[in-house]
């Protein structure tokens, strides 16, 4: 059999597995997640059981090489389906997915095996604290955590203002600048178990939305990083390797929030089309734009699934587009629903705040545009 035919056969094998996983994810989203979405938003309840259910449904496994070729399209679709119902939970699925990326790709075998299996099954949950390092490495803000070399490893100190998808028995990937005699030399990345005595989880101020995301301030006091916690040293080459996947997975949040908003517009079309026809951004037009964006995103995700590196400029562009579309869709959904969408209990109201989050979470629209401008500028001698 030719190599091409073998690839085609593998692709059709992935089809039913993907469909089965997405059906299971949809069932969780429209079942136990939909039942508590208001509580997540209004009371701030962390939907731990839903996140575990999603793991059992296979939402975190699709992107891994555990069953052969990774399927980033399926992973993005899973995040989309969850975000369509609840943006906050969709964001936590992304947190878990980002952590999955770190564990699988960092090359330290302590994060593989049974520990990895438990993670992708959702038996254990984790997050990511790379917002600050990602911004620091593109010159937007300084690194918040500082590491010092000590016998057998490093000691980390500092405070991160907010890290999501955390709990007492959770963990996350973080990064710090190694400082030697007052000079920053490079960055290291490491796994942080929240139950380590050197780690203190602190209450965050109330956010406008996205409550229930297990978001905490994290203070590091002489947190020790030995070889069993080290993920990357130095960090930059590692981040360059995973940046495209990290960002592409986030696009799922934007696709889902947009789709949820379009759904809400259709909900009132029958009663309100006679007035809604005067609005810009009507549901059918938004759907065309959303479908085209999803196609573009999946084409890039397929490159990543096959082990290639999609062009970063394209990845940043779909991520920015997803944010812009989420904002426009959520805003338009509110205009379409009118007073009923202005009720505090309305999903439309919640989704407006979720769309704001999609647009400001790192990389925010402004960061993406800045980076796209940098990548597009011709290089000249200095």
């Amino acid at each position, binding site marked *: 059999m030719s190599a091409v035919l073998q690839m085609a056969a593998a692709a059709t094998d992935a089809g039913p597995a993907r469909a089965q996983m997405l059906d299971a994810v949809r069932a969780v989203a429209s079942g136990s997640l939909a039942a508590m979405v208001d509580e997540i938003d209004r009371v701030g309840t962390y939907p731990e059981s839903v996140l575990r259910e999603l793991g059992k449904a296979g939402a975190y496994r699709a992107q891994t090489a555990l069953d052969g070729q990774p399927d980033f399209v399926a992973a993005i679709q899973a995040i989309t389906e969850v975000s369509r119902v609840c943006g906050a939970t969709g964001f936590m699925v992304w947190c878990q997915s980002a952590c999955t990326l770190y564990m699988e790709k960092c090359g330290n075998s302590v994060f593989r095996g049974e520990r990895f299996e438990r993670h992708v099954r959702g038996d254990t949950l984790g997050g990511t604290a790379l917002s600050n390092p990602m911004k620091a490495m593109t010159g937007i803000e300084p690194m918040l955590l500082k590491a010092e070399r000590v016998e057998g490893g490093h000691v980390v100190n500092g405070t991160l203002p907010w890290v999501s998808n955390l709990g007492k028995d959770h963990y996350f990937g973080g990064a710090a600048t190694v400082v030697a005699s007052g000079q920053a030399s490079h960055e290291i990345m490491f796994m942080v178990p929240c139950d380590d005595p050197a780690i203190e989880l602190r209450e965050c101020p109330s956010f406008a939305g996205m409550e229930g995301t297990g978001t905490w301030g994290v203070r590091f006091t002489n947190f020790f990083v030995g070889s069993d916690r080290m993920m990357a040293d130095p960090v930059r080459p590692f981040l360059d390797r995973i940046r495209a996947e990290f960002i592409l997975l986030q696009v799922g949040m934007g696709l889902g929030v947009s789709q949820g908003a379009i759904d809400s517009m259709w909900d009132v*079309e029958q009663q309100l*089309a006679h007035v*809604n*026809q005067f609005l*810009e951004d*009507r549901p059918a037009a938004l759907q065309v734009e959303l479908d*085209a964006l999803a196609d573009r995103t999946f084409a890039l995700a397929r490159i990543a699934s096959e082990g290639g590196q999609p062009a970063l*400029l394209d990845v940043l562009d779909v991520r920015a587009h997803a944010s812009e579309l989420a904002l426009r869709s959520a805003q338009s959904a509110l205009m379409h629903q009118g007073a009923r969408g202005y009720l505090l209990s309305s999903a439309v109201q919640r989704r407006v705040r979720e769309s704001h989050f999609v647009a400001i979470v790192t990389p925010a629209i402004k960061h993406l545009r800045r980076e796209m401008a940098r990548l597009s*500028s011709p290089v000249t*001698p200095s």
Partner: protein
Amino acid sequence: MSAPALAVCGADAAAAFRQYICRACGLIYDEATGDPDSGLVPGTRFEDIPDDWSCPLCGVGKADFEIYVPQARVAQAGSPSHAGHGRRDELGVVVVGAGAAGWQMARVLRERDANVPITLVTSCSGDVYDKPTLSVALARAISLAALVKETGAQAAARLKVRLMAETHAISVCAGTNALRTTRGSVRYKSLVLAHGAAPRPDPALPADLCWAINDLRCYAKFRQAVDASGEAQRIVVVGAGLVGCELANDLALTGHAVVLLDVADRPLANLLPARSSQDLLDAWAPLAIEFMGNTRVKQVKKTDFGMSVETDSALVLNGDHVLAATGLQTPGRLAQSAGLAWNNGISVSTDALRTSVPNIFALGDCISIDGQATRFIEPIARQAQVIAAHLTGCAPPTYTHVRPLVRVKTGSRRFTV
């Protein structure tokens, strides 16, 4: 409120349950599920609901509910009212690029239509200048400031154009008629690509070490670097085509020492017959231009003493600056994202300069006609006229592609080809 416990009898249950929608808040009362919180057991018919019952969500009365028969989404999408669209602004023409082609396009379009909205998106400042002048500016002692004939803002005000300067066009969503940029999306009725061509990347001539002069911004940086030293510079020019020869000529006329390299055995080998190339070399004899033919650059390095150019025959040339003039290629990003046909550039129809997507046109250095790119000034004005006529619905002149006359502005010995 009084909430009678309503028994659901068999006859009622047989009829299909209906739904009623609150006109105020959109809450749906479903007879099948009732409103247990208000004492209406599942199966309570709407007409059996006491008159003092109120909407559990917004509190309006029973009279504010109406029958609700959900329609399929496809049926709604087909309704006349669905088709309506509010518009934020009138969609006009969006032009990408503010070189000669972009500004010509804007000027000609404005002449034909005083009101059509024109947006010009450019990664540079939008300042108006003559590109061919860049290769003769030193000898004519034209200052950088004098190269700018009009600022972008002035040209935009004069032509009533919305100028998006320092804005990179990233992709085209042809399905929704939107250009995505680093300053947000711009929707268009028609899109005109005039973004030109860019220096062809060459691993032997890294962009962070070699000057590739293709626009005013890069030329200005190069001029500043050359002028900053205050003395004659040693400059290695790689590529003896039109741009390489003209720049070498200009630099040598102002006292700089130039080594001009080319893989061919003579300058302007693709443009001139051998005898004319020799005429040029003869004319250069009194100047500090050394031509080295049959030479390919292997690598360029920065050393403590300046730049070092190693050729594939292991010759090492040292200089203060290296200029790369080895040719251009059309960036494919926008065309590819829009799904435009591509043939050594953006493929356009010969008569209308239309791309394979009907409302996207292209002109200037970025296009190819029958697979041929022509990167000269002369055809641009005629191309802009043709496109403008199509965009404004006038009877268009037919574009006839002829190989333009090329003036070789090597001041020591001029040619017209």
